[in-house]
């Protein structure tokens, strides 16, 4: 190879650019860059021309203009007078909210289904298998539309609202529950929650170190739950329950006040959960099966019962296999939350690239911002999961 290359480079001239591997590569890359850049230039040029013709001013100034449309579901204060920028924040928060809820629920359900599928109990294993095969083979969008239409048809109209004690109302516009309105002293509860979380983390760490050193078990989960829920409860009792209830009331055509859960959210969350859980179930099953059978037998020989064997021996090892594909399922769930567009849950794609883009015509900016949101979410989830993966990965000595 080198001999030939040398002779041809000695020959010089055009033939050296064709026959010398190195030079040929450089030539080829220069051509690639040239084609790529000219394509980009062509697109940019066309875009600028088109924008000029349509009289669309580029830039992000539109974000401060008042939006003028209402949003059916928002985690922060939002009204029609709010700006497009605020609508953007609302939509991002909605995306994060549904993804977060979906990831938690799908993980729980997915682990249950995955373990159930390996159960020695025939009925349980078969139910899990049928569930998996059904959910995996039906498009998610179809499932979302199905549950949404079911909810809209079966739930009563606003006038015939189902109610529990005249404080909780269920209609086809949503579920309305009393919502606490904080009064002075309320801040103690979130602070207690944070303290509880930190304490639970510290206890878990201490318990793990002690177990590694002495082999003694500690009921980490119960202690953690006690700290996370108990401390805020204690804080609430100590401060004398510092909130009042905002009870939903029928005003005009709909209920006002209280906490609201719209059917779009419910159907989307349900469909996302059951769909993704099916995939997570398969991943969990594959991960558990990847742990060699000798491990189960060794745990049995040590005298561990079935539960501790699963919890202390199998799952930690299976995690190494499970985490990478689980990460991509989390990413999928987040990206799939954009299917909300079909039912009208106001998240990034629906609210921002739908409503805002249509109103302002700022297509480039809207699409770019949406892409940026998904990039950020994807990269953050990957980063967190990669960190966790490094922690559980096999340390080869």
């Amino acid at each position: 190879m080198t001999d030939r290359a040398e002779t041809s480079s000695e020959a010089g001239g055009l033939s050296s650019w064709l026959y010398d591997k190195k030079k040929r590569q450089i030539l080829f890359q220069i051509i690639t860059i040239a084609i790529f850049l000219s394509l980009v230039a062509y697109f940019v040029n066309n875009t600028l021309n088109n924008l000029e013709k349509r009289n669309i001013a580029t830039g992000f100034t539109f974000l401060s203009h008042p939006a003028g449309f209402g949003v059916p579901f928002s985690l922060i204060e939002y009204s029609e007078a709010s700006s497009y920028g605020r609508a953007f924040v609302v939509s991002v928060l909605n995306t994060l909210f549904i993804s977060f809820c979906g990831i938690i629920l799908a993980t729980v359900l997915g682990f249950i289904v995955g373990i159930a599928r390996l159960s020695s109990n025939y009925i349980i294993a078969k139910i899990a298998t049928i569930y998996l095969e059904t959910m995996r083979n039906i498009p998610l969008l179809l499932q979302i539309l199905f549950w949404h239409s079911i909810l809209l048809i079966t739930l009563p109209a606003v006038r015939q609202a189902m109610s529990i004690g005249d404080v909780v109302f269920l209609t086809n516009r949503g579920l309305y529950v009393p919502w606490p309105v904080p009064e002075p002293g309320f801040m103690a509860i979130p602070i207690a929650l944070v303290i509880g979380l930190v304490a639970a983390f510290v206890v878990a760490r201490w318990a793990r170190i002690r177990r590694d050193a002495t082999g003694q078990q500690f009921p980490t989960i119960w202690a953690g739950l006690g700290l996370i829920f108990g401390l805020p409860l204690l804080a609430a009792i100590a401060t004398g329950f510092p909130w009042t209830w905002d009870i939903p009331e029928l005003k005009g055509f709909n209920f006002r006040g209280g906490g609201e859960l719209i059917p779009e959210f419910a159907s989307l969350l349900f469909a996302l959960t059951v769909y993704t859980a099916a995939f997570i179930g398969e991943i969990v099953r594959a991960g558990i099966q990847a742990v060699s059978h000798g491990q189960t037998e060794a745990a049995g020989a040590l005298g561990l019962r079935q539960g501790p064997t699963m919890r202390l021996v199998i799952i930690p090892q299976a995690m190494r296999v499970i985490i990478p594909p689980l990460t991509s399922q989390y990413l999928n769930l987040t990206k799939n939350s954009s299917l909300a567009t079909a039912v009208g849950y106001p998240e990034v794609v629906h609210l921002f690239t739908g409503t805002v883009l249509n109103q302002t015509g700022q297509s480039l900016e809207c699409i770019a911002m949406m892409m940026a949101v998904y990039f950020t979410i994807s990269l953050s989830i990957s980063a967190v999961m990669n960190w966790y993966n490094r922690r559980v990965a096999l340390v080869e000595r």
Partner: protein
Amino acid sequence: MSDTTMRDYQSDPLVHTPAPDLPPPATSVGIIGWMRNNLFSSPMNSLLTVLGVVALYYIIPPIVNWAIVDATISGTTREGCDAAGGACWTFIKVRFWLFIYGFYPEGEWWRINITMLLFFGPLLYCLIETTPGKKWVVLFLCIPYWPIGGALLLGGFWGMPFVDTTQWSGFSLTLIIAVTGISFSLPLGILLALGRRSDLPVLRMICIGFIEFIRAVPLISILFMSTVILPLFMPEGVTFDKLMRALIGVTLFSAAYMAETVRGGLQAIPNGQYEAADAMGLTYWQSMRLIVLPQALKIVIPALVSSFIGLFKDTTLVLIIGLVDLVSMIQSSGADIAWAGYAPHGYVFAALLFFVFCFAMSRYSMYLEDKLHTGHKR
């Protein structure tokens, strides 16, 4: 080792004749044994069994009642369905051909049939192991099929009336998008995967950038982009057909995923194979075509089939940019006053249809996995 007892083993062999085996206890064989092993092996298991049976009792009879006992299939209007309260198969029956062929003119349905047959016929031919001449069949599917199929569907010559792509709808549109998406994204994905593993930094960067960009965003945003941004990129007057834009979006999207799958296969090929190909003096494309890709693709066939299934399911998303696929057709039929409220029944029908296709594909991939698995399996 001296034998002192001097026993004559020849004439008096020391043979122990065991008594005949006792039959196994009734509790460990037959249906009872099976139930003891699989359903009631421990108290926890028994509890699970009971819970499972109770759950099935609450799930299965209502479904059967809804789908069969209380279902209506006679008549052509909703009255019967409204009265019976079960599944309204009448809705499906009345709208069946609309769901399948959409707004494609009724007299021209044979063109869709022929187009699909021209694709799936040769495809099935290739899936059978022993058939000869697969190379030529694949070549037909790769190149001449597309202009032929496209021309047949569009028409406008030889007395076939022109059918605009806006009239392509229903399940046939779903199939058209899926088939086109799969056929074009696979080669594109292979090229991207090769580019990502190329020695040329520029090419590698472009491929990585493209793949990671597409994989970080949802398909809807790609479809939105192809409807909103693509017209901006083109010089004035150049417009793409709506279907074409969706096809470009779906193809680019799934190509990025296929590229990652194929890259997995490429990485699994030992370096010795690449080096051996170089040692033989093969050019890059020869070594890829003859040595590396056949091995790499074989490894990833099951993963590729799951990508195909994913793409097939993802075709439903085109309804969001206004194409009328099967799901969209059902949605609008259910909004029609004649059948208002019966959309869920249509969705069940669509779910069954999708299930059949996807399940068949996944079973085929499992079969392939078994067949291609040449290693040792526990």
